[in-house]
């Protein structure tokens, strides 16, 4: 019996056959996340997992981690795999820990508005559950129809409602986490490690299994809005004034640049969002919005149309159908640099001959989460690979103007050193303390490894992508 056979039989003994799969089809579909992997990636990394496990409890996760330590096998935690930075893609095989089976809503503390859920609960289920109560979620991701609570805690934690109520981390009271050695800890703001240290650590430090979330009392009124503008600059200025004079729950700005129509320079734009408050405040804010939109020569669309747009808020990728593939990146950027960045995205799109959609979600008066999408076609592998460098180009400039990536995972890891060196040091320190064998989601966020455990230097990766971009021009 080989080591891997022994490991597998012990895994099945401890968990039960129904929670473990080595089926070849299963391995195929768990070898990727949201993003389409260029073929060359499979030459660099072993993206095929050895086994997939679907734990049903914190105890199961503990068992798996202990066994992985014993046999020195990597473990890759996975929620709904809706993050596009390769966070759940194995780089040297290992165990995929599919956490979607931990999907119970455990308890609602009606008095204090605290909701305890398992990590694999999908946000939409939480929203649906709360409809019957007097509480609502302060913030939730734009992929709420599929992403999990634990997945969002491990990644960015910025979404709808973050503008008014802050990021996800500010709306969590405590979490139960399993450390790489299998220990179970309860983490809050005052523990060591603390919530803010583990939040957004992209599954390299721990596996969240239970989370207690802060709710907000249901607002008396909710008023979605949407305004169209004939050019992006006006839309942006109007949006900034909306931020200054009102308190929207969310505010999202979108614009498109189309190669085919050469509609880059004077592309139109729109923003949409929602006010939620007591009836009178919502009404007053809406009046202010109306006058701002008028001042910037925009058009405030009728309420039913705005409501439809708001209901469509989770469908940000509708445009992908015209690709049929997309390339893009997500980063946080100072609000005063949005216009420059959008223009740069148009410029890049023009150079690469790709249509662009740029979405900007405001997260405060000063910062926004920007999500440029470039439409391309993965069926043309050479061109797709050449265009893939666009995701790096756009991030280079975003960092130069004071921005930082929304996530690192596998694709953005070289940028952490430049964008957030202190955070990187802190993560490295914690990684070596908590996971000395480097078993939990290895080769991500703070450094990558290619086949045979060889490190992939960030600079080499960056130079390669720059070379690809130059080559694209030549070809």
């Amino acid at each position, binding site marked *: 019996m080989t080591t891997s056979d022994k490991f597998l039989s012990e895994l099945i003994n401890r968990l039960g056959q129904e929670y473990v799969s080595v*089926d070849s089809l*299963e391995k195929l579909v768990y070898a990727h996340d949201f993003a389409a992997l260029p073929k060359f990636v499979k030459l660099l990394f072993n993206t095929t997992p050895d086994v997939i496990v679907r734990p049903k409890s914190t105890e199961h996760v503990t068992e798996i981690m202990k066994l992985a330590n014993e046999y020195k096998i990597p473990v890759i935690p996975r929620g709904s795999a809706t993050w596009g930075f390769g966070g759940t893609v194995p780089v040297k095989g290992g165990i995929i820990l599919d956490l979607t089976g931990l999907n119970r809503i455990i308890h609602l503390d009606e008095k204090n508005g605290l909701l305890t859920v398992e990590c694999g609960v*999908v946000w939409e289920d939480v929203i649906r559950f709360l409809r019957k109560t007097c509480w609502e979620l302060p913030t939730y991701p734009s992929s709420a129809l599929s*992403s999990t609570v634990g997945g969002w805690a491990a990644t960015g934690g910025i979404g709808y409602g973050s503008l008014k109520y802050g990021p996800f981390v500010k709306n969590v009271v405590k979490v139960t986490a399993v450390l790489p050695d299998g220990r179970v800890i309860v983490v809050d703001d005052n523990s060591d490690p603390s919530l803010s240290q583990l939040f957004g650590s992209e599954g390299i430090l721990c596996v969240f299994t239970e989370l207690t979330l802060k709710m907000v009392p249901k607002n008396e009124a909710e008023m979605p809005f949407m305004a169209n503008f004939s050019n992006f600059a006006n839309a942006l200025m109007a949006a900034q004034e909306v931020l200054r004079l009102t308190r929207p729950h969310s505010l999202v700005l979108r614009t498109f640049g189309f190669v085919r129509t050469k509609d880059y320079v004077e592309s139109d734009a729109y923003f949409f969002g929602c006010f939620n408050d007591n009836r009178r405040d919502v009404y007053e804010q809406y009046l202010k919005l109306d006058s701002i939109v008028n001042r910037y020569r925009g058009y405030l669309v009728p309420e039913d149309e705005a409501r439809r747009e708001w209901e469509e808020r989770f469908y940000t*990728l*509708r445009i992908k159908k015209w*690709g*049929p593939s997309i390339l893009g990146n997500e980063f946080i950027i100072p609000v005063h640099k949005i216009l420059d960045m959008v223009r740069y995205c148009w410029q890049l799109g023009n150079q690469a001959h790709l249509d662009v959609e740029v979405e900007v979600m405001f997260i405060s008066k000063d910062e926004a989460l920007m999500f440029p999408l470039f439409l391309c*076609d993965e069926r043309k592998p050479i061109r797709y690979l050449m265009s893939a460098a666009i995701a790096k180009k756009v991030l280079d400039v975003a960092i130069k103007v004071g921005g930082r990536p929304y996530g690192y995972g596998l694709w953005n890891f070289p940028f952490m050193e430049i964008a957030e060196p202190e955070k990187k040091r802190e993560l490295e320190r914690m990684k070596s303390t908590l996971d000395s064998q480097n078993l939990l989601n290895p080769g991500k966020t703070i450094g990558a490894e290619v086949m045979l455990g060889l490190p992939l230097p960030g600079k080499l990766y960056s130079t390669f992508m720059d070379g690809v971009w130059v080559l694209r021009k030549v070809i």
Partner: protein
Amino acid sequence: MFIIPKLQLEDIFACAQCGYCVKKCPVYYFLGWESTSPRGKMFTLKEILGNNSRLDEQKIHKLGKPLSMRFFNCTFCGLCKEVCHVEVDLLEIWSKVREVLYELGIVPESIIKLSETVKQSKNIYMMDNTSRMDWVTYTGADVNFKDSAEVVYFVGCITSFSGRVQSIAQAVSSLLNYVNEDWTLLKDEWCCGHPLVLSGAIREARVLAFHNVEMIESTGAKRVVTGCPGCYLALKHEYPRLLGKKPKFEVLHSSQLLSTYITSGRLVVPKSDITLTYHDPCELGRISGIIREPRVVLQSVTDTFVEPEYFGRESICCGSGGLLKAVNPSLAESIAQRRYGMLASTNVEVIVSACPTCVQTLAQTATTMQNGKRVIDLSQLIAERIGLM
């Protein structure tokens, strides 16, 4: 080699892998593994596409039965298509894949049996097709067999042969008589072919379509009414594609016809204080878009009509769609129990649906529960309220 038509090929690549379909899928809900989800299946398809937009036969053979089971463990409820981020017509893709698998002979044993049965006996029960009208004797219904009529009542296999739901045929017949409709049954009705389309046996389905259209057109009927959403889908949407031409008759589901009778005043239903909930059959509601009409009918009966959790376009399958009951009966049963639980939790007296398969499945589930609710078809409800049954 099987060539995927251009639009469907675009769709396979357009799939955003966002996972909106994953959580909604009633099959994934119980099986839980990614490969059983619509997203997983779309990714698998992308991987087995060879160059030049062809499905790689060798890869399909290599993956064999496990691959086939993924595509047949599906209720064809269309919820994946409904929530799709990029509006991919997933049902069209699933149909195409089943067609390919059928052609290659990589389908579950039960599917081969079913298609053989329909081919031989012209019904899904392997019964002598001349016994198709036995329900008339069993129920004592007053029916017509005319050479020509305005309306043809297409009964369908399940309503004709399954004892539990033959009363639906009795109800529809009595209602047609009650409003003095000029109607007839077909003298030689064959299976509508929908089960064969779902099996991937398109050529065989075409034979049935041809026969049924010929029979209906020979009566000179302008309208065909059926109480079965599967038959409705076949007659209305699948026949034009199978035959390459639009038949010369209009197709209506019984709920549409009843709604027209009620709104035009041809049918007056006495109101009562009965409490009801309604289960939207997937093929009728979400797939065919008939959501309003059954509610018009229900609201004519009572003011205490309660919508269940997940209704209309969001409705959840009863578990018997897509031939799942034949392929994986225990999974179908689990899905039925889940849906029945949602309907029963409305605490109404009667659960109503507008599909013999849904009624049969949910009623069967109700018998396994303590204090199981009564489950009936919409036409039965109306016939009963008027005093025809």
